């Protein structure tokens, strides 16, 4: 099950990208392993992060952004962020907000995943600019739909 936002500003980000770079954020090691395999099966390059803080650092939005060697301005450009909602510390929603509030990363599509189907949660995320909301556990068919949807998403 997924719900998607029509207010996307990303132009078919995967259409012209041979090997899209996806940042997958989840506190569960099992789920990180799964999502990584699902994505690499569809020719994506994957970086995983175990929490929101690490994700922000990787994106060049962390506290140490001035010293960060792995900022998005360099060659490790991220085409998509997919994050779990329920995480200790910073939730996926909070991570989404921080990304959308940033000047350099706000165009990057963010997908939220959750094991719980809570309408308020879904609405909240879509309103904040999430590209899609997906229910766990994710399957290969979900990632295919995601890729297709994002390839055909023009603003």
């Amino acid at each position, binding site marked *: 099950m997924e719900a998607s936002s029509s207010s996307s500003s990303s132009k078919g980000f995967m259409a012209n990208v041979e090997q899209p770079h996806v940042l997958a954020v989840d506190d*569960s090691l*099992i789920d990180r392993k799964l999502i990584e395999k699902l994505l690499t099966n569809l020719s994506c390059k994957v970086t995983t992060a175990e929490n929101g803080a690490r994700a922000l650092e990787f994106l060049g939005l962390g506290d140490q952004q001035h010293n960060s060697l792995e900022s998005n301005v360099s060659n490790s450009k991220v085409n998509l962020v997919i994050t779990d909602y329920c995480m200790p510390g910073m939730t996926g929603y909070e991570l989404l907000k921080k990304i959308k509030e940033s000047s350099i990363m706000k165009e990057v599509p963010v997908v939220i995943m959750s094991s719980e189907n809570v309408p308020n949660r879904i609405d909240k995320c879509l309103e904040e600019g999430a590209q899609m909301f997906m229910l766990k556990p994710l399957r*290969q068919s979900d990632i295919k739909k995601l890729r297709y949807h994002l390839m055909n998403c023009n603003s």
Partner: protein
Amino acid sequence: MNVEKLGSDAMDGVSQLQKQLVDYTASLFDEAFLDEQFNQLQQLQDENNPDFVVEVVSLFFQDTERLVNELAKALDQQCVDYKFVDKSVHQLKGSSSSIGAQRVQRACISFRNFCDEQNVEWCIKCLQQVKHEYLLVKNKLENLFELQRQVVAAGGSLPR
């Protein structure tokens, strides 16, 4: 010695093992030990990641044992931290769901309902149920992997 007969006996051996494997796998689904998500895992396994399922399931075993121990300790406290208990059961529910361990997942769902009541005796019973289901599925999965190993060792291929 009749080499041809030897050859056909060997083939029978592999076929028999393969049938055993197919039947055993089917029984695990019939008895709800495993669900569709486990199929998804098996389909993710390929030549690049030939041990993918075993690796992910091993992570699940480690995770579950850690969480069950932590939950036992938490429920043993004078003042039980129900937020911690709920959070841990949520994690366990998530990982069992991710590998398709349906009965463990269901036991976790029941457990979370009792967490809300904040009744320690019921929580302890729920934990015992989760542990029981976990040990059952662990045993089943170990048998499954052993059968798969035997099929491969006998020169057979695994059903997809």
